[in-house]
């Protein structure tokens, strides 16, 4: 039936529905497997040697995906609640610059981490404030703060990267644990488990889904939407702050222009994973696999010597395909359900 032959109308009605449901649930995992297998075969053919499927390269893929992965975890909560955060890239730069500045002034690594997380938290809180109190659309509010946070970063740093802080900060986050696994990979795994528990098991997670599904209904149930939205954007900010700390440690510096276009990767990982841009549906596992796939795509384009200009092109296309598929699925669900 699935091999393209003509089928009776009745099974045509049923088959695409079943297929689309299956694909929307497990398609992302299938894509991951297909990508890994395909690249393991293509890379030796193109480069004459297996550069892709090596422990060293795969570790690198995970390490590079961890920065985006953590931001995407927060983005998953925000998009599930029916919102969006375009300012994450600027938050990464601001939190990184503030953490590096604090440490350059003589603070220890843990104060640096705290500064990054606190900056992210305040940025998220500010986004939440604009959205809940000034009642701006999340798109407009975070488009504005994308500029504000970036501008603030450039003002504070005078446009120059910040070096010369305690190398202990770099050492802590470049540790390898359990043999060869970089610490950031462990951090993202741990945060993913926490986020999954929060989304699936707690009242906060339930309200995130409920607000994304129908704000009006949540309001009528006597729940303070304002309070929970503030919490959602703050939570996203905290995760972005953690991500900023990891990036600063990995680069041994904080560049005020870093984090540019990070929102693209985070949104791509989230919607590719199966979280619906229309809100009400979110999956943490999907987001993590989505972040991994984006990291693999970037890695593969490098290995295959494809100019890096193509990277953003591909990630942008991924967003469009993922959202288009989600809409097809919804249309089918409506027609059949």
């Amino acid at each position, binding site marked *: 039936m699935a091999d393209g032959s003509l089928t009776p109308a009745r099974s045509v009605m049923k088959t695409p529905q079943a297929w689309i449901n299956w694909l929307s649930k497990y398609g992302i995992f299938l894509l991951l497997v297909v990508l890994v297998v395909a690249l393991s075969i293509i890379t030796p053919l193109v480069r004459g040697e297996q550069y892709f499927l090596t422990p060293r390269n795969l570790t690198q893929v995970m390490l590079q995906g961890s920065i985006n992965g953590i931001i995407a975890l927060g983005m998953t909560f925000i998009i599930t609640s029916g919102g969006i955060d375009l300012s994450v890239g600027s938050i990464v730069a601001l939190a990184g610059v503030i953490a590096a500045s604090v440490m350059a002034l003589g603070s220890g690594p843990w104060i640096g981490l705290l500064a990054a997380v606190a900056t992210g938290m305040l940025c998220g809180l500010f986004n939440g404030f604009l959205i809940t109190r000034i009642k701006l659309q999340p798109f407009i509010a975070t488009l504005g703060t994308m500029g504000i946070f970036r501008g603030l970063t450039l003002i504070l740093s005078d446009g120059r990267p910040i070096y010369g802080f305690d190398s202990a900060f770099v050492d802590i986050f470049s540790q390898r644990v359990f043999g060869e696994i970089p610490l950031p990979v462990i951090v993202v795994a741990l945060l993913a488990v926490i986020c999954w528990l929060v989304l699936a098991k707690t009242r906060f997670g*339930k309200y995130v889904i409920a607000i994304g599904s129908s704000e009006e209904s949540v309001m*009528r149930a006597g729940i303070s939407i304002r309070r929970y939205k503030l919490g959602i954007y703050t939570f996203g900010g905290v995760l972005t702050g953690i991500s900023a700390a990891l990036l600063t440690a990995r680069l041994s510096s904080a560049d005020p222009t870093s984090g540019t276009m990070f929102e693209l990767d985070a949104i791509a990982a989230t919607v590719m994973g199966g979280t619906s841009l229309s809100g009400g549906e979110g999956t943490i596992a999907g987001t993590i696999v989505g972040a991994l796939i984006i990291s693999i795509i970037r890695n593969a384009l490098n290995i295959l010597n494809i100019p890096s200009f193509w990277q953003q092109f591909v990630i942008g296309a991924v967003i469009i395909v993922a959202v288009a598929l989600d809409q097809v699925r919804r249309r089918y669900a409506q027609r059949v359900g």
Partner: protein
Amino acid sequence: MRSPLCEDIGSMVRQDDRAVILEIDNVTKAFGAVQALQSISFNVYKGEIVALVGDNGAGKSTLIKIIAGVHTPTSGTLRVRGALCDFKTPADALQVGIETVYQDLALIDPLDVADNVYLGREVLKKSWLGRVFGVLDRTQMRRATGEALSQLHIKIPAPTMPVSRMSGGQRQAVAIGRAVTWGRQLILLDEPTAALGVEETEQVLLTIEKLRDEYGMTFIVISHNMQNVHRIADRIIVLRQGKHAATLDKYATTPEEIVAYITGAKAQTYESHKDG
């Protein structure tokens, strides 16, 4: 103006031993220059079904929303069980025990029955983890939902099924189930059968009647279907152009007469009403 008791004389004989649940006294609502409601007064007694009827724009929805705490009246008072109530938000009305089933049902599609029934009233795990992080005790909520709904004769599929996968009648049952689980005083139903087929409508009407007869629950129902109104309501309150046009006793009226009051073909004076 008349005393609030006058308008209920027609039903007094049957209801004088019942507690007054809701007293609406001289309620007025204006949206800017638009007078949506003008000095509405009536009582609702325990264990009765009051139908609120009227043409589009007659003020039914505005009145329901005032009782549900969505709107605040411009003037006039609301008493629940004799206590003066000043609802500022829907949460206030819920707390007093007034539940509303809105026309759109206000369900959360991706969540299951128990999650919907307990929306805003979640039971948390007793452990410190549960209290600090707000961990849901879903086992407890699902069990209680299953028990409560079956006791109330409300038939729904498994309490673990997302409501998005349910039929219109089942979704209506979940919404009513949620309302009667928490509505200690009064349940407001806004067009409960408008979106349903014949059989599902019958199910919903039977459920409402059973809840009144067996549990003494009190309802205010908005409906455009005069046959249904005449069947389930004990009393019918007709609104016309924001004014209280008539209060009719089920046993002393017909669907045709209700329509006559709605369209204004017939008008009730307070005197003739007193006699009825």
